[in-house]
């Protein structure tokens, strides 16, 4: 097996090397992205406008108030369970202020074990998942997420509602700017994501339908 694999690799690379490479193209001029800058005050309204057209929902709040905004939303929407990462600073804040189990109050469920031990719960019994973000993108709309051991990958995917915390000050002009400023190239995590709205499809008659495989609602809690 390994011999044949080695042969395939050598044959393919050998053929590519033997070919006269196509003439080098002109230098890559990224100016078209560099000049897409928005005044700081316009970044958030633009992001919100772009994401609302693809059905993302927004709640504006403050640094002090955001955990209550999460709880209020869950109560208003009658969502009984919220899955979250308990060991991030935001997770600890949520746990501190969480109402202690009165009748009808939502339940806060930590995602702190390997998925294998809680897969059925994750798929069938979680009403919403909460994550932080590493900022947003003004140009096109979109949130930046780096799932981690503290905030696993499936938190933002499997529960039917995704609640994401975004700080207005962390909105970048473009995806390209975020990649450069946050120096992604030297520190890529096993999984990085952009998310711009609830899951959707247009595979039947080009007609948009929301909530196909991922969450059917995305709520962005914006700290201004």
């Amino acid at each position, binding site marked *: 097996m390994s011999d044949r694999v080695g042969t395939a690799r050598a044959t393919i690379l050998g053929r590519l090397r033997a070919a006269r*490479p*196509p003439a080098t*193209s002109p230098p890559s001029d990224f100016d078209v992205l560099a000049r897409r800058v928005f005044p700081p005050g316009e970044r958030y309204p633009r992001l919100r406008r*772009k994401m609302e057209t693809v059905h993302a929902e927004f709640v504006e709040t403050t640094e002090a108030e955001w955990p209550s905004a999460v709880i209020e939303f869950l109560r208003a929407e009658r969502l009984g369970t919220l899955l979250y990462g308990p060991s991030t600073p935001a997770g600890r804040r949520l746990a501190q202020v969480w109402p202690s189990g009165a009748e009808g109050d939502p339940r806060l469920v930590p995602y702190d074990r390997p998925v294998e031990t809680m897969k059925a719960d994750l798929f069938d019994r979680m009403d919403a998942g909460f994550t932080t973000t590493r900022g947003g993108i003004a140009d*096109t709309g979109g949130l930046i997420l780096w*799932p981690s051991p503290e905030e696993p990958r499936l938190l933002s995917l499997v529960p039917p509602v995704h609640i994401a915390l975004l700080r207005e000050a962390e909105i970048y002009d473009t995806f390209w700017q975020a990649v450069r400023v946050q120096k992604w190239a030297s520190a890529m995590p*096993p999984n990085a994501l952009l*998310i711009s709205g609830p899951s959707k499809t247009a595979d*039947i008659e080009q007609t948009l339908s929301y909530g196909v*495989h991922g969450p059917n609602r995305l709520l962005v809690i914006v700290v201004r």
Partner: protein
Amino acid sequence: MSAETPAPEFRPAASRALRDPELRANFRRAMDGLILKRGEQFADPVEWNDLRNLGAAIRGRTLAKLPELLERLEAACTRNGIRVHWARDAEEGNAIVLGILREHGATRVVKSKSMVSEEMHLNEYLEEQGIDPLESDLGEYIIQLDHETPSHIIAPAIHMNRRQIARLFGKKIREARYTEDIDELTAIARRVLRKKFFEADAGISGVNFAVAETGTLCLVENEGNGRMSTHVPSVHIALMGLEKVVENLEDVPPLYSLLTRSATGQPITTYFNMISGPRGAEEKDGPAEVHLVILDNGRSRIFEDEALAQTLKCIRCGACMNHCPVYTRVGGHAYQSVYPGPIGKILTPQMEGVGRRHDLLEASSLCGACGEVCPVGIRIPELIVRLRREAIEGRPDGPGSVAEAGRGRHALESAAWTIWEAALTDSGLYRALGFAATRLRRLLPPWLPVLSRWTSVRSTPVPGRRTLHELAREAGVPDE
């Protein structure tokens, strides 16, 4: 792969498609919508031009360093814990995938969209081996239920309307009640597939961009089935054509922007999923193993010719087919090729032979729309003309030769061009033919073969009474 099976024929398939008003309406409606939405995305011509130049430069730079970048990609992926495999052709690729699945005893496999897997006929192969690969992209799921192939590389079920899909679901999904409501149809698929994601032993996906610098596999999608397939099962196998590599992470944002705006007219998709490794030591989820299969399947041969290598710049957005007057009328299936439309017209004959698939090269009016909308500046019309020439005059031997060069020649066509050439280079013959055409002009029977195809729907063309030459001489123009 081509010798044993007869060559698919475009013409009869196209004729059948043209006589199907439902199919034509489905495509016309879909293409009109996609053209409009793409146009809105590129409303600023300066930005479009600059972004396209950047996209073309990035893809050009990639090709100029292709072998080096593939090695860097392999090294970076390996560092990240992604296992890299190389496959010369579909057969090797299929064997690699099967080997990985067997090693894990995986029988339930969920797939997210991958055109390379279509190229490999992977589903058929796995089914023969007792493995059940389930397509999870809604469009792919629909056509898998219908035992069909994709009719478009981005929207695989674009040839069907809601009534056809409603009938299909009613027939094939036991728990589904008949409905023509699109949200309800989508919800039915969600219920079925969610269970499948939960149970799956392995996930298979394609790759939109593979970054050499960081060893990152990028997947573009709206539905979330790509994330489900790559993050829920314990094994993820990613398949890529070897041209999908890009050099730097910084190259990804402009290509991603060009891709989504060209393909569906969206500024950004719902999800952009960047995978740089399996589940980390402390992570709670994600696959324990990630495998990357790098497939050649004829690409290194295409790469040998400097001009034709442009074909490999393609980022598979499908804008060329959306804007193609031929594709819009005949639909994707008439091409009988994994890649339909203009990009398929240049890619398929190079992969399967210009003799065997010569008819695809003729399925073009050379209107130029495909080249104009291509986000990475592939000059598709020029390549169609080049390949037409290769099919007739090309030499089949030597480096850089096109597969089956010279085998697209047709005796009758060659004879016609010989007569044409003689008539235009021999003044005596030219005059004789002109004299005959003008004096015998009423004698051309409209039922003549070839001519009758024209006259069956139009009045018979009648040449003038005298040739232009004669008229000029009578008017006193000196004969030169």
